[in-house]
């Protein structure tokens, strides 16, 4: 009886602790969302109020500033293009590493990992000089190129794992029936790893969408992405917290929604497949 009670108390304590942590995780986000709907007086009330009449002025102000909308468009163009390009180059690379006898596979995987691990500032400094010389400064293509460096390696690591998880016998069976290996990939293996490919693409999208430093130094006013644009709200507008919060909601929403959608793969992705 003592043991049972002890177990019950442990479970209760764990629940309290976990829900406490969940509250701490959620509170800043909850606070940002409510601030986005407050007018200026409510936003600056001390102590913070939780009862107020919500209104959409902040969102209207953010959306009507053409600057922010064009940044949103830039972010979309750059993120989606990087994803597609990374998949286009990454799927064949991953397939080669997963299914063929490739010499020094370990060395190749480590090399890929090291490109992913390099601090962004290492990329920013030389690329800043190179782009000014060859005229890629402030262009979409320039941004897609630098983001490809980080995401191609990630894509290959992720997809290699997914391809290996499809039993090789399935494609061999199709080949016995006369299909070429290429056909077998599209007919048998690709459909089975659709989920994995989608998750990889989404994680790639989130990485690019959230990136700040490279966007800060390599984009121009016309091609700046949302993380850069939102930071301009501070300097240009003083401290209009309501508007910053509204912009924050709009910037974070796609990343958060997509992240929740692929939550099963999130940890696998963030550890390059080291944790399944």
């Amino acid at each position, binding site marked *: 009886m003592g043991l049972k009670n002890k177990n019950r108390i442990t479970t209760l304590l764990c629940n309290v602790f976990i829900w406490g942590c969940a509250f701490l995780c959620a509170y800043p986000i909850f606070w940002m969302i409510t601030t986005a709907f407050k007018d200026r007086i409510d936003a600056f009330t001390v102590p913070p109020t939780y009862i107020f009449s919500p209104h959409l002025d902040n969102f209207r102000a953010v959306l009507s500033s053409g600057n922010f909308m064009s940044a949103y468009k830039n972010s979309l163009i750059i993120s989606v293009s990087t994803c597609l390009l990374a998949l286009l180059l990454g799927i064949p690379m991953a397939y080669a590493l997963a299914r063929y006898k490739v010499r020094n*596979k370990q060395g190749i995987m480590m090399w890929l990992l090291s490109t992913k691990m390099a601090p962004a500032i290492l990329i920013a400094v030389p690329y800043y000089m190179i782009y000014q010389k060859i005229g890629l400064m402030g262009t979409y293509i320039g941004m897609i190129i630098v983001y490809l460096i980080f995401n191609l390696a990630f894509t290959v690591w992720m997809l290699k794992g997914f391809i290996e998880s499809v039993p090789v016998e399935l494609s061999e069976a199709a080949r016995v029936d006369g299909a070429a290996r290429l056909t077998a990939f599209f007919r048998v293996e690709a459909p089975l790893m659709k989920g994995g490919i989608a998750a990889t693409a989404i994680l790639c999208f989130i990485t690019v969408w959230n990136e700040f430093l490279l966007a800060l*130094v390599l984009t121009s006013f016309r091609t700046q992405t949302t993380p850069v644009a939102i930071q301009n709200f501070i300097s240009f507008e003083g401290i209009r917290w309501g508007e910053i919060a509204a912009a924050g909601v709009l910037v974070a929403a796609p990343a958060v929604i997509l992240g929740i959608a692929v939550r099963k793969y999130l940890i696998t992705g963030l550890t390059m497949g080291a944790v399944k």
Partner: protein
Amino acid sequence: MNKEKIKRLVTLESESSWKLLFYPGRWILLLLTMVPTIYAFWLSIQNYNLAKPTQRSFVLLRNYLNVVTDSRFLGALGTTAKFTVCSLALELVLGMLIAHCLAKRIYGKEIVQIIIMLPMIMTPVVVGLIWKMFYDAEFGVISYYISAVTGKAPNILGESASSLLGLIVVDVWEWTPYVALILLAAIQSLPMEPYEAVKVDGASAVQTFRYLTLPLLQPAIAVAVMFRFMDLFKWMDTIYIMTGGGPGTSTETLSYYAYMNNFKFLEVGYAAAMCIVMLLIVLFICNTIGKKLLLKEES
């Protein structure tokens, strides 16, 4: 015959088809990483300030010597080390606690897991902005609650004594869930048998954790440490948004100091030398720890 060979190659039937699949991506990635690295090295052996282009000259390894004797660089190294060790330690302890609790019966587990995931998928710049508002000395929520207790509103990011602590709190908030979820995945795949055996032997909970769980979780802990270390080492988004390295240089990390040299002081050659030094550190860590951890199954 030749046509047949090409057909086999293109339909991926040939032994050497992998080259066709692998080489385009490899060459592109090699080009995109090697060219800037070589170029950075080329810059790093020059005395080159963008504001004084006429005084450009070759100085060989002088920049490197200056880097390792630059007190501001060493200060930044110290800040990076302090920040990395403190954040990592807190994230590991809290993450371990959360992971163990999450492995138990939790009401609304699915929802809790989604909520706990939110900080790490949020855009880091937005995270920085939220906390900047929280810490604001006049209107910030945190300053308000602290002043309610102590009677004095602190200026957390404005004092060099507390600014780094303020940033550590933000990092712990943002990344503890990540560590917790890595450890949770490992806990859920722990084998049952040793625990039953230990129970029969009458080991206490602390003993079980110390001598059984901890060794079994060691690979997962190592993965978490390495990936967090890599991120903490290059960390600068939040600093840029929240403190700008200040007050003074109290929150200036290596990445941020290199950024300042290149984009504010325009000392391109010096910044490049600093980048090469950082690259060597990363490569060293990758090759020693990373190889052991991530490629176990391959060998």
